[in-house]
Structure formats: C-alpha cells, structure tokens
C-alpha cells in the first residue's frame, strides 16, 4: 500500500484513469535486497505539469529513473499511453516519446553543444536541422556556441544543453530531475518560466524539484515523496497550504 495520501489511494487510482503516464505500486532499488522505492503511485494526465518534492534521499531521482528504465523495477507497473513499459530500455522509450534530463552528468562533456543535440536526435537524424532551429529559439545562447565542447560549460549552461537535447525528439512527456539545481536565483526563475513554456506547448512534464515552494507555484499537481513512498499528493496550491506539508517539507517560516 502507498502511504497516507490526502485523497486516499482509491481516489488517487480513480483520478489516474486514462492518464498518459502511470506508475502503480512500484518497488525498485539498486542493490539486491535494498528497496529504495517501497510502493510508489504516480500519474500524469496529458498536458499536466506534475511536481515531485521531498527531502534528500527520498527516492525522487530513483522514481524518475525507474519510470525511464534506468533502474530495475522489482514489482509494480509503469504505463505510458496505455502500453506497459515496465523495465523497457531507455532508448526504446525515447522512440515512444519520453524525454529525460538527469540530475547529474546530463551532457556529453567531450562532444560539442551541436553534437550533444545531435545525440538527442539520434533516432531521427533527418529532423535534426529543423528541430535544432526550434530548440535554438528556446535557448538562444546555445546556437551561438554550437562548436564549444560541453565539458567546458557552466552548470547552468549544461542544464540548458541537457534540456535542449531531451527536446530534440519532440517528446510527449518530459522528465526533469531538478532543472534549477545550482542556478542563481535569477536563472532559477528563468528555468521555471522555461519549463512552464515547454508545458504550454502541450508537453506533459514530470519534474523533481528541490526548490519546493517555487515548484508548487507552477505545478498543476504535486507529490511529496518520503522514504520511497508518496506521502502526500494534491494540487500545487493545496499542498503549499497544507499545514503538515508546510511543517515537514517546506519549513515553518514559509507560510505564504
């Protein structure tokens, strides 16, 4: 059973009907016998912007990775577009329309910016040039420096390359692991605006964020993950005002 949820698990399951992405009661981990996820539920309806917040080590990154075939799911089910994608290989998921930006090591350092984006369009090399122009509109800084090696970029610039790379295949769902990590406050705002803009174009976004308060402001819905279970779920606004969530995960000072 999933942990306490605001709506209760049954309500949650009902709301998950027909969702584009569904994770049902997933147990997953890295080392044999050690589960990091202990029965997680999550769904995202088409076009939604879903946030995942929670303390360090809660398993947020692991949840995204198990959805994307990079961590082995031991039991439970992952569904995308009504197809069972549990433990499917990441490159197959890319061709189905899922994009992923990992938290760390999210660029190919010895490749140029342009080559990084080419790798994003690996499965559709013909579409590269038109996609590159579209993505360059979103990240004008990248187009000017296309021949620069990604290994020499700053953390924020790498984030941009990584997100642009994931967008090259026009995914239906974009999985973002901490898109604002390591960014200055001004750039953090910019990153959130960009995520919102990508979501507005119809891309479903599932986003893990450390910056919980800002995340809840822009999300349609969010999950609070704790010790491998989703402890709370609800609309961004409801969670931001829920006294328990505020006390445990947002800090008491933060009553807005």
């Amino acid at each position, binding site marked *: 059973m999933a942990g306490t949820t605001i709506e209760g698990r049954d309500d949650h399951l009902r709301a998950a009907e027909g969702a584009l992405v569904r994770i049902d009661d997933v147990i997953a981990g890295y080392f044999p016998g050690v589960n990091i996820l202990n029965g997680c539920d999550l769904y995202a309806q088409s076009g939604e912007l879903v946030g995942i917040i929670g303390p360090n080590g809660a398993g947020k990154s692991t949840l995204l990775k198990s959805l994307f075939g990079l961590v082995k799911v031991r039991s439970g089910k992952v569904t995308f577009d009504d197809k069972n994608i549990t433990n499917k290989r*990441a490159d197959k998921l890319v061709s189905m329309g899922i994009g992923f930006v990992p938290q760390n090591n999210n660029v190919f350092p010895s490749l140029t910016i342009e080559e990084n984006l080419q790798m994003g369009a*690996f499965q559709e090399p013909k579409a590269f040039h038109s996609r590159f122009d579209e993505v360059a509109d979103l990240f004008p800084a990248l187009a000017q420096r296309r021949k620069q090696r990604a290994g020499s970029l700053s953390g924020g610039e790498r984030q941009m390359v990584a997100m642009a*790379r994931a967008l090259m295949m026009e995914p239906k769902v974009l999985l973002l692991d901490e898109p604002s990590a390591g960014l200055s406050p001004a750039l953090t705002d910019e990153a959130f605006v960009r995520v919102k803009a990508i979501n507005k174009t119809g891309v479903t976004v599932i986003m893990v964020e450390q910056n919980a308060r800002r995340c809840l402001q822009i999300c349609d819905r969010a999950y609070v993950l704790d010790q491998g279970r989703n402890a709370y779920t609800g609309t961004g606004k409801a969670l931001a005002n829920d006294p328990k969530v505020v006390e445990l995960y947002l800090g008491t000072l933060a009553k807005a």
Partner: protein
Amino acid sequence: MRRLLLGISAVALALWALLVGGAPAMAADTTIGGVIKSDQEAVPGVTVNVSDETGFVENAISDEKGRWRVVVPQAGTYTVLIETDTLPPGVSLRDPDRTSVEVTVGEGQTKSVLFPTGDAPVSSTSKLDQALQLTVDGFIFGLTIALAAVGLSLIFGTTGLTNFSHGELVTFGSLMAYFFSAIMGLPFIVAAAAAVFAGGLFGFLQDRFFWRWLRKRGTALIAMLVVSIGLGIFLRYFYLFIFGGNTRQYAEYSGQAGLVLGPIVVTPKALVGAIVAVVFLAATVAWLRFTRMGKASRAIADNPALASASGIDVNRVISIIWAAGAGLAALAGVIYSLSNGVSWISGFGLLLLIFAGVTLGGLGTAIGAIVGSIIVGTMIQLSTLLIPSELKNVGALAVLIIILMIRPQGILGRSERVG
C-alpha cells in the same frame, strides 16, 4: 576512474612484462638452434659446435633450409661456435671476429643463435642514414601498432574493458590470412580482405555472446580484465595447438627485394602495408568525428546511461565498435605477418607495445592511440642505435614511463573540467 584504470593497466603491464620473459615451455627438449642465411638464401652444410664447461660437445650441420639444432642435456650456459671454414665460398660472417657466442638457455627452452652473414650494412652507412632508415622502419611499424591500438582504445572507451586478449585478435588476423592463402589457395590480397572480415566477425561474436553477457551481469571492470587475460591464454594455446609453434611465411611476397629510395631501403610490401594502414586509420578517425555512429560511440564513452537516455541503442553501437576494432586488429596482424611471418604468438608479442601506444596517447582517444603508437614504434627502432636490439622493447617502456610522468593524462588526453 581513468586514473584507476591507468594504474591497473600499469601494474598488469608490469606483471605481463615479467611473464613474457619466461615464454611458454611447451617442448620438453632444451635446445639451441638457428638458421644460417646469406641474402635471404639458406646456407646448408655449415658446421656449428655447441659445448659447455662440463665437457659436453656436440656438432650440428645446417640442413637445406639453413637450419641447425642441438639438443643440450640441461639448462645452462653454452658456447656456440661456427666453423667458418665450412661456409661456402663467397659467404662470410658480417662480423668476422664473432665466431663464437655464449648463450644461456633455460630448462625446456629453445634458444636461437644467429650468425649474420654478408656485408654489414652498418659499416657502409653513416649514423645519420642509419637513423633515417630506423625512423622510417619505426614509423611503418608504429602504423601497424596503431591499427591494433585504435581498436583497443575504442573498446576501452565504450565498455571500460582493458582487453588483454587484444593481441590474440591481431594473431587471429594473420592466422586467417594464412588459412585463406596457404590452405584455401586464395590470392594473398583476397585472403587478407577475408581475414580482416573474419576478424571483425570474431570480435562481433565475442562481444555478442561473451562480453555483453558479462556486462549485463554487472561484472566489475577488474574482474573483466582478469577474464580477458584468461581468454588470451586460452586463445593463444588454442592457436598453438592448431597452428603449431613454427613461424611460417606466406607463399607470395616472401623474399621481396627492397626498394632503394635515396638512403632508405623499404620493401614494397611494407610500403603497401603502411599505405593501407594510413587509409584505414584516417577512415576510422573520420568515422568517429563525422558520422552519427562515430559520435554515438564517443557519447557512450562519455556516459553510457545518458547515451541510452538520448535514444542510442548502446549495445548495438558497442557491437559495431567491437567488430570494427577487431577487424582493425586483424588487419594489423596481416600487415605485421607479411614482413615478420605468421606465428601463434605474434599478437601477444605486440600487446605491450599496443598498450604503450594507447596509454601514451591518452586513454580512450583514438587519435591519441594513433600518435602514441607511432611514437612507440619509432622510438623502439631508433633506440637500437644506442642499445642492443634485444632490449628495444624495454626502451619503449622507459619512454612510456617518462612521458606519463610529465603528462599523466597522456599526450593528447584532456584533463576534464572538475565540478
């Protein structure tokens, strides 16, 4: 990670260098032997005398192939003397004073002793011409090493495997070329192409049914390194079992006269081999740099999980890399054996130099492996100006150590931005 692997390969190389000194003792007999030749022609009927301090004396007479052989009672030091008055008219020792040689032979070993005949090229050429000749020889040799080194480096880069059985892929190429030409009777050029293709197929199958399986099980890199040493030994003795311990020449192009280009003499086959090597090396570099698959393999070398997350079928690219790397190694084997003969152990003998080339150039970069190998090859040949040629591989190792002390990341390796 890189540093760790560098350390491991250094230690493993050192162990290997120790091991290779005591080459496998297959024959139970302890023997001393050699071949007497003059201008590539065998010289029969020459008497060679082997003796030691305990009173053991035995004579041998060279046969129609110029070969002579003496079985000695035990390991020890022997004096080998050539009876110069049995040399046919017109044939004389290159160094008339060197009629006897002291050799030490180990239990079960075969020690070969050569008595070079004819005019010494050394005496007629200046040091400068000699250095020029050695540079050219070394450069050509380096190109051969580079063919093998590129494959080693690509496989290391994409899978992390330090493959100590890479030398056996080189040997495989020469054995296949011998099989297709001498046994199937195909013209050498066709046999060579078939051998390279067979080598690629061998690499592909090795990865598909062996290495991929180990990777999937999450086998640690050090364990895989040890496995590769075992696989190398297995293949080596399998080759010995099938092919025997002799070094054999191809029927075609065997005793080719050298082309004289100014002060330099090069055999046409060495020249053609070098040109083929350059073409294949250039094609490999261009492939890595400009093609989609080449870029994907560099992406995998950077970060396999991210490559997979970008939509790259990582295992498929690794299969291609294995096939290409093994094919290039086979080509190296064919070119090497064209001048040095086909033997079960030739690839193993080159392994140290291949590793030296890869490490010198900077682990995991293809151009680095090529540049490193050419430096190693040239250094080895040039070092014979100063040190006895028996020690030339040691000279290469010394160069490797010195360069790595100055540039730990290799000549072309880049130190990554940290943080």
